[in-house]
C-alpha cells in the first residue's frame, strides 16, 4: 500500500517529526510526533491514541 502523505489543510505544508508536549493530571511528558512545521498543529494517528497513549493515561491515572 502506498504510504500516506499528510498535509496541513490550513498551511498546505507536509508534516515533519517534532517534539510534542502532553499534559495530563498535572504531569507532562514529550514525544516526537508529526506536526505542521508552520502552524504547529499535531497529527495523532489512531494506533497511537488507542495504544501507547491509553497505556500512559492509565498509568498516570493510577498514580
Amino acid at each position, binding site marked *: 500500500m502506498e504510504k500516506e*502523505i*499528510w498535509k496541513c489543510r490550513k498551511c498546505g505544508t507536509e508534516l515533519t517529526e517534532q517534539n510534542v508536549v502532553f499534559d*495530563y*493530571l*498535572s*504531569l507532562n511528558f514529550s514525544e516526537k510526533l508529526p506536526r505542521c512545521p508552520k502552524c504547529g498543529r499535531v497529527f495523532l494517528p489512531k494506533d497511537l491514541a488507542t495504544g501507547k497513549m491509553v497505556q500512559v*493515561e492509565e498509568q498516570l491515572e493510577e498514580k
Partner: protein
Amino acid sequence: MKREEAFAFTQNCINGEPATCIAACPFHMDIKAFLKKAGKGRIGTAAQEMNKSLPFPVLISALCDAPCQKACQRSTVLEEEPIAIRLLEQTCANSKENKERKTYRLEALPQKIAVVGAGPVGLSFALHMSRKRFSVTVFDKEDRWGGSVCAHPDFPAFDMEFQKKFADTDVVFRFGEEIADPESLSEYEAIFLATGKSGSDFGLLDGWGRQFGTTKTPNVFLSGEMAGLSLIEGMAHTLEVAKAMESWIQTGDVSHAAVTWEKTECSRDVPHPDEPKTEHVTPAGKLYTKEEAAKEASRCMQCDCEECMKGCELLTKYKKKPPRIAIDVAQDGMVRNSVSSACITRQTWSCNQCGYCANVCDENVDIGGLFELSRKDRVESGLYPPAFHGYWMREMNEAVSESGLLKPAPNGGDTQYLFFPGCRLGGVNPDYTLRSYDALLSLHQETGIWLGCCGIPALWAGEGAAFEAHIETMKQEWEQVGKPVVIYACASCRRTFARFLPEIPLVSLYELLDQGMQEKKLSLPDADTVSEPKAFAVFDPCAATGMDELKAAVRSLAGKAGTELADYDSKGKCCGYGGHIQLANPAFFDEIADARCKETPAPFLTYCVNCMEVFVAHGKETRHILDVIFGLDVSGKAPGTLEEKKENNRMVKKEILETYWKEPFEEKKDPWDIMKVEVPDEVMSDMERLLIPLGDVKKTIWINEDACEGFENQFGEILCRMVTDYITCWVKYRKNEDVYQVLEVYAHRMFIREEEH
C-alpha cells in the same frame, strides 16, 4: 479530607481482627496460624507457632482449661464440637518434631535481675528476661524448680521441658535459699516476686498494679497465684511484666512498655453462611497421630470476616481488605500532588455504588460510601481524571436543561402527584414515559410531570458542589408545584430522593400501575401483542434492595401479563452500570455485566432501563416490565445510540408539551445538525464505547471544515480533532459530494500543548 473521615467508615469492620479463639487465649497465641500448619500435617512448624507465644508449651497445653475452645466458632456459631485445640497443642508440644530453635548467644547486659520463686510463673518470667539478655538469678526455698506443679503426675515431662528451655540460657538457679526480705537483694537492679499461692508477698500486695505487675517499691514487681491470678494467667502476665521491667530499667518508667494487645474485648463472631459441616476427630490413643491431627486441625475456618469481599466482584478483584481501603483513601486525600502514594484510583472509580457491601455487613461498614467519599475528595482537590465522568455530567445537564420540564397537573387542579420518569427512561424508549404518564393520568388526573434527573450522575462523578446545587434546585421545583407525592420509575432516583430529599413523599410507578390494574382502572394489552418470550427471571436493580413492595408490584404486574417467572435472585448486585464505571474500567464493566448475564439461562425482566440496556448490549435477551404491560414490541431491538437517546428525551418533552399543554417546543438546533454523515457499524460501536455521541462527531467535522483545518492525505482522507472539556475527539472522514463518510473516531484524555512548537 480528614483521615478520620475515611477511617470512620471501617471502624466497625472486624476484618483482620484476632479471631475469637485468639482473643480468648491468655497468651493470645496465633491459634489460626497454629491450626493452619497442623492442618497441613506440619507438626514441627505448628509447634514453633506455640513456642512463639507460650513459654512452656508442654506444661501449658496440659494445664490450661482452654478458653479458646469455648470461643471456637465451630461451636458458638455452627453448634458443632469445637476444634480440639488443646489436644492438638499437646500433640504438637510433645511431638519429637518440636525442636528447640538454636539461638545466638549475645553478650549479657550489665543489669542483674532477681526472681524469687521457681514455679512456672517465676520460670516464665526468668525465660523472658533472659531472652532480653538480662543476667537473671532465680531463688527458691525448695531445692528444685516447679513450685506447685511438682506434685502433678506429668511433672517429669514439665521438668524435661524446663531443662530444655533453660539449657541455652545464662540463668543462674539458687535453690534452697529462702529470701526473707527483698531488701536483701540490693545488688539486683530489679526483683520479680512469684512466691506462689501460699508464698509471702512481703507486704507488697497492697498497692499492686495489675497491668504491669508493679508494687509500691519501684524496682520490685510481682505476679502469679500470690496476686490472685490462676497459674496460666500468671504465666501469661509475665510477658507484660517483663516488658514493663525492661522499660523501667531503661527509662525509669513502666508506661513505655509496648501494648501488644489492643482489642482484648474482641469477641465478635464472623458469619459463616454456607459453611459445610465437619466431624470432630477422636484420637485412637491419648494424643493425635499426625494424620488425625491434620484432619482435626483442618476443621479450622480461619475465622475472619470477608462477607463483603465474597460477594463483590470489585473487592474480590482488588483483594484489598476494608481497613486497608480506608488507609489508602485517607492517604490519597493527604497527598496533594498528582502522584498519590495510595494507588487506589482505579478501584475508587470502578465501584458500582450498588450498596451490596453495606447490605451484607452486620457491622454497617459501607465501602461504597468510602469510595463515594474518595471520589468527592479527589474532585475537590482537582486531581481526578475528568474523562471518567465528563460525558455523564453533560448528559445530566442536557436532561435538566434542553429536555427538562416541570408542569403541574394538566387539568388545572391541585397537583397531587408528580411523575418523575428519570433522565433515561424516555431516552431509551419514549413510549416508556409517554405511555406511563398517560396511564397515570387515567388513574389520577392531578398528576404533573417532572422531566429531569435525580442528580446521581453528579454524585457518582464526585462532583459534590454540582450535586448539592442540583438537589437544592430540585427541592425548590418540587415546592413550586405544591409539594406533591413524587412517582418514580427508577429505583436509583428513589434512592437519591430518599437520601437527600427525605421530605419528598414517594411512590413507585409500578405500584400505582399494579393497583390500577387490580382495581380494573387500567387494562393490559391484548395477549397477542405482548412481547415474547413469556418466561423471565426478574432482575431487581441494585437500588431496589429493601424495597419489597416495589419488587412485589413488578412481579404482580408480570403475573397479570401472563408471564412465568424463573427462580432467580439478583441479590442486590449491580448490572455493571452503577457508579458510571464504563470509562474508568471498561474491561471490569464488561466482566460484571457478563457475570450477571450468565447467572440464569432465562431472559431477564427488569424495571430499570440501565440494567436493560447493559444486558442487551452484552447479548442477553431482556425486557423492561413496561414492554410487557404496555405490549411494546421491542424484540430484536438494539439499544439506541447516545444521540438517539438525546433525541428521544427531547421528543418526550415535545410530545408532552403538545399533547397536554398545546404548547410548541422549539428544539435547539445546532448548525451541524443538518450535516449528512455515514457511520459504519464498527465506528459507531467505537463511539458508543468511548461515549462520543454522533453530534460531537458532526461538530468536530463542522468546525474543521468551517476553518479548513486538520490534515488531508493524497487519498482525499481528512483527519481533524476537537478539544472538549474532558477529551480530545479525533475524526477521520472522506467527503463524498454532500455526505461525510466517517472512517475512524477515537479520543484521548491527555492535552496536547500546540501553542509550543
